[in-house]
């Protein structure tokens, strides 16, 4: 009962924060990947910066922006799924 009725209502702020935090995590990944030299997005952009490979830098920025916007869109849709009253 708690799971079904309480969680639905408590989920709204969690979704908001989750979407925003994922954006922060994307930029945080730049630092962690550099420290542990994980070959990921962050390492890619930093290496591209030092190789003066501007096309790659642009690509990474564009891709992360797209991911971020998509996440926000997913969060907005999740709101409505969780709380059908919000459907305007």
């Amino acid at each position: 009962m708690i799971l079904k009725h309480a969680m639905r209502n408590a989920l709204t702020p969690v979704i908001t924060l989750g979407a925003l935090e994922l954006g922060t995590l994307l930029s945080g990944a730049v630092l962690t990947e550099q420290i542990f030299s994980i070959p990921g997005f962050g390492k890619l952009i930093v290496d591209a910066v030092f190789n003066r490979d501007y096309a790659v830098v642009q690509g990474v920025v564009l891709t992360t922006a797209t991911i971020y916007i998509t996440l926000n869109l997913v969060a907005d849709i999740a709101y409505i799924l969780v709380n059908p009253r919000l459907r305007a």
Partner: protein
Amino acid sequence: MTDATLTAIPAAVSDELESPSRRALRRLFQRKGAVAGLVVIATFALLALFAPLILPYDPIATSWSLVRKPPSALHWFGTDELGRDILSRVVYGARASLMAGAISVGIALGIGVPLGLLSGYRGGFIDALISRMTDAMLACPFLILAIALAAFLGPSLGNAMIAIGITTTPIFVRLTRGQVMSVKVEDYVEAARAMGNPRWRIALFHILPNIMPALLVQATLSIAAAIIAEAALSFLGLGQQPPAPSWGSMLNAAQRFLTNAPWMAIWPGLAIFLVVLSFNLVGDGLRDALDPRER
């Protein structure tokens, strides 16, 4: 009527006459966290300002006989991989970090507030244009945009400040715009317009002072974020260039010697932690002190 009520009245009157800025200051000093934050920031600022007078060592002087020595009476914070005194480097790093925080937020305020005023007060097409531009900038994660900008400008402390400043700008545009929209429908703005004041005069002298508290709080919190961003850029090698000291680049150098020489990482890390925490505490204190709802 008792004496108590009679004596209570003058106190209430003087409270009414207290100017808003003085009241905000008094309430700020009532908060322990904010006062502690102010003390820490003032200490760091004074140390950074008078660094050459206080410190016995040059922050970039190397010495091969002093490589990675633990903290001692001569070198309080120890020495780094080139035998440089870490205390000196932390204090000179405070210069870079505090300057980066202040200047980048200054850039953000200088660009963001006029754009926000224009956007919020004029409305219409200009508002739509500026709002879409800020939306586009806010779509990119903060640090990634800053890295990209710093990369295009070329790695240096000045360019890192510009990059962080521009990345912080949309936050100020949006905040100013929202505040202006809520303030411009107030009666005193209407009165100023009825008296025939030109638009720019209303915006600068009637609206701007009334949205100042919100901007001040956001600016303080943004300085904290800017210092972290500067440390991150310097860590990646996009900020302060060696051999000039910066907390971020010190952490980058320390990372390879973490097990052998942990003091190389602890002091700059602690400095970043303390300064950022202090700015956040002061920002929170200001927010509470400037809130007109609670007296």
